[in-house]
Structure formats: C-alpha cells, structure tokens
C-alpha cells in the first residue's frame, strides 16, 4: 500500500484559539517502507498519523492510498479501509479491558465477519508468534505493559493489513521492552513486507528506521 499526503493541514479549536497541528504536510510512503515520524510531544505527529490512518479529517489537503483520494470517501468506506487494510497500534494499547488477549485479537476479524473457527486459530497463531501463547485467556489488566503492547500489535495484524500505523508504541514501555517492540515491528516490516509508520520521539527507535521524518509545530521535514 502506498500512502501519500498532499498539502495536508489540520487546524482545530482549543478553547478560543485555533491550533494548527499539521501544517501543509507533503509525505509519500511507499509499499514496504519502514517510516518514522519523529517529534516532541505536541509537535503534531499523532494528528498526522490519525489523518493518514483515516481516523480524522483534514482541514485541507488530501490523503491518497494507492492513488485513490481517500479524503472524499464516506465514513463507511473509510471504516472499511481501516478494518481491512490498516492496523493500528496505540501508545496506551487501547485493548478492550473486558476481553481476553485472544478475544482482543479476534475482534477485528469478527468485525470483518471472518469464520469463527478461523478467527480463533489465527488469533492464537498470532499471539504464539509474538510469544504470548501462554497468555491467551488473560485479560489486559493481567498482562504487563510489554505484553499488552504485543497483544495490540497482534490485533493490528489480525486482518492482515497492508500498513501498520503505530502511534508512540514504546511511549509507555521500559527500554528493554521498547526495543523488543520495535524489533517486532521491524520484523513485521521485513518478513511480511508490510508498510510500517511509527510516530515516536525515541532516538533509539529512529536508528532502526529506513526513512525518518521530523515534525515540529506541524511542519514535516525529511530527515534521512
């Protein structure tokens, strides 16, 4: 999946003032790329990822997925694209607390109406692959931070998406777990040829990335 942002701007209102979170951003991510968007907290990287991930509407500009302008898609079509073609990993994991690890991973497949048996088999396989085969029936509160993030990554992979969008995936993790998580994302990129876009301010992660963009006050610049 090739993702392109063209003159992307996002302005939102905070109280009485207008905040330009993303300011005329142009970005192109080719299929199979491993991309980092680096910036300090509040620099606009999460907003940019939400725009690219079709979770938010730009104030102006367009997002293209495989040359299709997705900014003009209906909410239903955008949700369908998120469900089938994109996987999301959040800083705070955003696992559903009432579901077990395996059920959390099954959820996107259930939403995509995959057969029940297939859901379970694939969810188990994904969790075993990332080393959580023994934690299938544990609920999020019974897992460590690193385990929760790995479950979140497994969930992101559930519908075999073409792109993984990870917003500060190591933000809540200690350095060792953070390294393992980044290594996992890197493996997914290399082995499965999935596009991975990571927002981070962690310099250690940046070193592992193929392409690095920096963002400051909403303005994006290609770093390497």
């Amino acid at each position, binding site marked *: 999946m090739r993702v392109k942002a063209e003159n992307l701007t996002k302005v939102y209102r905070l109280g009485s003032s207008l905040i330009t979170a993303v300011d005329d951003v142009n970005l192109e991510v080719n299929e199979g790329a491993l991309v980092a968007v680096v910036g300090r907290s509040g620099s606009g990287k*999460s*907003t940019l990822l939400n725009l690219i991930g079709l979770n938010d509407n730009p104030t102006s500009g367009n997002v293209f997925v495989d040359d299709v302008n997705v900014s003009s898609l209906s909410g239903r079509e955008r*949700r369908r*694209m*998120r*469900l089938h073609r994109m996987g999301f990993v959040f800083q705070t994991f*955003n696992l559903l607390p009432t579901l077990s690890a395996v059920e959390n991973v099954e959820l996107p497949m259930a*939403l995509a109406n995959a057969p029940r048996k297939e859901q379970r088999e694939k969810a188990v396989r994904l969790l075993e692959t990332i080393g959580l085969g023994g934690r299938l029936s544990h609920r999020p509160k019974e897992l460590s931070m690193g385990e929760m993030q790995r479950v979140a990554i497994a969930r992101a992979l559930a519908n075999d998406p073409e792109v993984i969008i990870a917003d500060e995936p190591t933000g809540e993790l200690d350095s060792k777990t953070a390294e393992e998580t980044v290594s996992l994302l890197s493996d997914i990129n290399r082995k499965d040829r999935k596009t991975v876009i990571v927002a981070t301010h962690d310099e250690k992660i940046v070193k592992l990335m193929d392409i690095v963009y920096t963002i400051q006050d909403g303005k994006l610049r290609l770093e390497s």
Partner: protein
Amino acid sequence: MRYTTVIKEMNVLFSGQIMVVSNDSIVIQAFPIYGGRLAQNHTENILQNIAGVEETVPMVFISPLGFEDLLNLVPVNFTMGIPVEHWRLILGPTPLKNNAGHFPSNETSNEVVVGPSVADQYNWTVGTKIVVRGRELEVTGILDTKLALLNRCVFMPLTIAQELFNYRGSTNLITVKPAQGYSQKNLADTIESQIPSVKALTEDERNDMIQPILAQVETWNIGIQTVIFLMSLILVMTVTIMSVSERRRDFATLDAIGAPLTYVFRVVIFETSLIGVLGGILGILFGSLVALVLASLYTNIPLAMFFPTFYEIIPPFYMFEIFLAVVFVCCLGGIIPAINATRMRIAEVLRAEY
C-alpha cells in the same frame, strides 16, 4: 386499580336490576356507601303496586367507606344483609369453598357466610364463632369467588343485619326486577315520580354515574405510569450515558479499528436490553415479594397464605407486560447513549486525554 375493579364488578352483580336508594344517599354503582334510609314496608308496598315491577328485594349494605378511606391501603370489609331466600340475587352461582357448610338457613339464624379474603385475614373457617356488635355469629360458609367485592364481604340474613346495624324496619337499598316487556328506564322514571324521596337507578344510569370517577382514576393511573415511564427513561439514559462516557476510549478504539457504526450501536443497545431483562426479572420478583409482604403486614394474613394464589394476585400476563415495558424502556433509554457511542473518534478522545 383495586377500587376501579370493585366498582366495575358492582354492576355485574346486579345486572338487569333497578336499584332504589334514598335521594340523600351517596351511591357508587349499585351500592349506597353513605347515608340514606328507606322505610322498608312503605317503600316496598308502593313499589309492588307499580305496573312493571316483578319483584323487590330489600337489602342493607354497610360500608365503612368514607371518601377519606378511598386512599386507605388496608382492605375494607363490607357487610350485606340479604333476605335468605334471595342469596342468589347477588351471589349468583357462587359456590361455597370446598362445598363445605351452608348459607344461613333462616332470617333469624345467627349465621354468616364470608368472602375468602376476609376469612383469610381473620383466620376464620366454617364453624368459627365471631362477634359482630356484641352478637355471636357463626361462620357457616366461605365463598369460593375471585370477585373483589365478594372477597371482602360478610353476608348475613337481612333481619340480623337490620338488628345489628340499627336498621329495624328500614333498609338502604331495594332492588327492583322489571317484569318482562318493561324497560328499565321507563320503570325507573315511574318509580321516581311515584316516590319522590328515592332515586331509581337503571344499569345505564349507574354506569354513567361512575364514568367520571373511573375516568379520573384512569387519568391518575395514566399520569402515574407516565411519570414512572419518564423517570425510568431518564434514569436508564443517564446511567448509560455515564457508562458510555467512561468507556469512550473503548468505543473510539472500536471506531479506529473499523467497527461499523451499527455494531457500536448494537453493543450499547444490547447492554441496556440486558439491564432491562435482568432488572425486569429481579424487579418483578422483588416487587411482588414486597407487595405480598406489605399486604400480609396490613391484613395480618400470614405471608404463606398468599403463595398458593400468587398467580391470581399478580397474574402472569401482568408480569409479562411489566417485563416487556421494562425492556422497552431500557432499549429506548439506550438509544441516545448508543448514538453518542457511535460518535466517539479516536483522534478527539486522545486529543482530549493528552
């Protein structure tokens, strides 16, 4: 509900009869609940000489009801004095419970038959001696009936009732059976013209008289039900809005991973429906139990005695209706929170949190 049921039943009991009462009495349906006496022989003599009167039956109806008692929770007992040869006029084919005992045998026998609810309340059985206004009477039978009025009545011979309640030579109610071919309305008009001190109430007039009261009670019922409905709706809605608000990250996550809006909507409605189902079942069980306990406390009838007739006191159809109403209110109360849940967006939720 209790009073409307009693009132509606009253006319069934005297179907086809004209009820003659004193002008100054207050009448609900067929029964003079307050004031008004008729000189028995004098009135009956005049009535029997009116063309179209086939039969007259004098009665005494004793009601402790004043208007202030209408809101009383404690069941009220009525006493009726009826000539022994006319039991069937009011009781129709009503049998005695377990076919045990008999109706009072003659006008001067100190015998009564009682409604089952009264019998349960005071733990009376056939053969029990009771004292009414200083006179010992024997319970010779217990009616086997479900009618509310008959349930709460003590029936005794007219003469005994007249003696006990100071109605010697007088009565407060005379039923008139029209002869075949005579209309109730014309006969009632004739009675009133010949005896100016009485009201002769036809079945239609009695129904008309009671309509405003029934309408008022119905209005109150509808009002109370509406208030309860709205309060429940607001309560369910508030609780669900809070619950959705607390889980906005979860709903936003569902949206982020591509859950269809209908899925999110269904999740919330399913939750509120489940609350309705569980709340309905528990509410009906708990509410029924509380109602029975209160009834037991007010009437002194042992709680255990209510259980055999539980489904008659609270019919399954009512329970089902209440259950459906609760589930409906919960589903309805879930709609706005469900719409809110579908509007949760991860970008906005995360932006608000950081």
